[in-house]
């Protein structure tokens, strides 16, 4: 197959579908109890050097407890898929955990501004980067979820985003139209926060799904954090609601308010004051160090983090905000 043009970026994960199949052949299909602590899940399934993906969208339905635990356990040399990664990226940059990154959207927190620390880190040259767009990364996950090594798409072409990607331009064998072939992305391990999961890992999500269906299926190992554990009977009551089947899942961690300080649809809104504080303290290295010590390194778990930031009264306020009792109207 003729490659018309190709980007200069690296492919950080092997897109080979047969190698992925060989891995998945050995993955357990048994329905067994996978409930464990976030600490154990990170210790067991995330290793130095792994390529990781974080589900959700920036500060919405994001597995914050897993990000904090990665810092506490001192993981290093991770690869990362920066697919509208905002607060999660900010946390992980605070631990300088990366040495390579596929970028679609990083260092920013959307309308909240840019993270000075994440920006500094990404300007040091310590992190090798390949460039993509959000949809390009979505398609890379989608190809992996389909068990193939590439899918074609019609974006990127003509731009520097293509030039610094690892995409390759090919022609449609039917219409001769040009397409950018995007290599499948099979992460070593991903973490996704969901509304409900059973002990085996069958998951339900409300609201937008972003790229999480595909991320879950593409990932070799998957850590689920959930707002609430539910029974397998409840999952079976209506199988239409299951969006991630248990066989994708390696660990199930019950973490109420697990997306805090991010937003969780129907549960609680984001804590904008705390996120503002994050951005502010990053400008002063000493202050930032103390902030991280207080909120991450000095915390045993997500409960303790929440307790230090307003506890249940804060959670109630954020729940009321989510329900539109408190807001612009």
């Amino acid at each position, binding site marked *: 197959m003729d490659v018309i043009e190709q980007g200069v970026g690296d492919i950080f994960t092997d897109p080979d579908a047969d190698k992925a199949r060989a891995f998945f052949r050995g993955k357990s299909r048994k329905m067994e109890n996978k409930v464990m602590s976030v600490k154990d899940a990170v210790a067991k399934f995330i290793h130095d050097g792994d390529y990781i993906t974080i589900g959700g969208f920036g500060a919405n339905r994001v597995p914050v407890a897993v990000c904090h635990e990665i810092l506490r356990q001192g993981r290093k040399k991770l690869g990362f898929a920066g697919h509208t990664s905002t607060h999660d990226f900010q946390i992980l940059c605070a631990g300088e955990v990366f040495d390579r990154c596929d970028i679609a959207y990083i260092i920013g927190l959307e309308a909240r501004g840019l993270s000075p620390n994440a920006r500094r880190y990404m300007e040091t040259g310590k992190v090798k980067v390949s460039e993509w767009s959000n949809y390009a990364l979505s398609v890379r996950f989608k190809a992996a979820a389909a068990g193939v090594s590439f899918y074609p798409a019609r*974006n990127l072409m003509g731009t520097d985003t293509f030039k610094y990607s690892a995409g390759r331009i090919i022609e449609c064998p039917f219409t001769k139209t040009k397409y950018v072939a995007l290599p499948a992305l099979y992460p070593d391990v991903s973490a996704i926060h969901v509304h409900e999961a059973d002990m085996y890992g069958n998951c339900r999500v409300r609201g937008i799904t972003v790229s999480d269906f595909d991320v879950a299926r593409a990932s070799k190992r998957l850590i689920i954090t959930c707002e609430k554990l539910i029974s397998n009977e409840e999952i079976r009551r209506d199988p239409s609601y299951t969006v991630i089947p248990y066989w994708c899942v390696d660990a199930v961690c019950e973490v109420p308010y697990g997306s805090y300080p991010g937003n969780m649809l129907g549960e609680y809104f984001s804590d904008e004051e705390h996120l503002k504080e994050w951005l502010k303290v990053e400008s002063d290295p000493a202050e930032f160090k103390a902030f991280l010590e207080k909120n991450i390194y000095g915390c045993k778990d997500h409960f303790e983090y929440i307790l230090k930031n307003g506890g249940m009264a804060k959670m109630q306020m954020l729940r009321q905000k989510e329900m*539109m009792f408190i807001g612009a109207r």
Partner: protein
Amino acid sequence: MPDYNTMELMICTASRELEDGASVGVGTGAPCAAAMLAQKIHSPNLIIVFEAGGVAPLIPEMPISVGDSRTTWKAIMASGMCEIMETACRGMLDYTFLGGAQIDMYGNLNSTRIGTDHQKPKVRFPGSGGANDFGSFCWRMMVMTPQDSKRFVEKVSYCTTPGWLSGGDSRAKSGLPLGAGPYKIITNMAVMDFEPESKRMRVIALNPGYSVKDVQDNCGFELLKAKKIVENHAPTKEELHMLRDVIDPYRYVIGR
């Protein structure tokens, strides 16, 4: 002094471009405000979609993220990234509003970096996000940005999102979907479109109080001028009322 600020002026001007029954992919901030304003004033059937998956919500207050709960508040569908971008790729999204640190005469946008060493950039920006996707797929890409020579540059340091590329038929030849591309650039001073053959940026309308010279003086490349340059009307009382009292009462976007 006019009784409106620069941001209010751009949002009102931009909102007038969105006709009833069209679909638009927007980000947070000014684009979302412009789309909401169009819905309230003249386009009740304007369909607003967000890249993370929200479709046609009854937006209760300005979202702070294109994936936050407000983007699916009483929406007709809460979907995902592929659903939205593939809907755009199928040709179902008419408009998008994008931004960036730099724009050139062909409407190419930079939101990735300043500097030449890509692995160690002088200044790192967030990157494409969904901009390259919306800019590749939506029929008409629009930009709202202050008129400033540092933003309107001869050549972008890095082309994150395709405009008309190097002009002429270069975009058509690139493999990007045919017929889509930059449509209008809306600044505090003027509105520009793109001359159909060369695809170079061209002044077509001026905001009250600005001259062609003002626009050219605040642009880093030579602008084409339409044969007939019209004058935009100032924001109306109704537009300002809707914007200030209904859409953005806390003035997150329009400022204080």
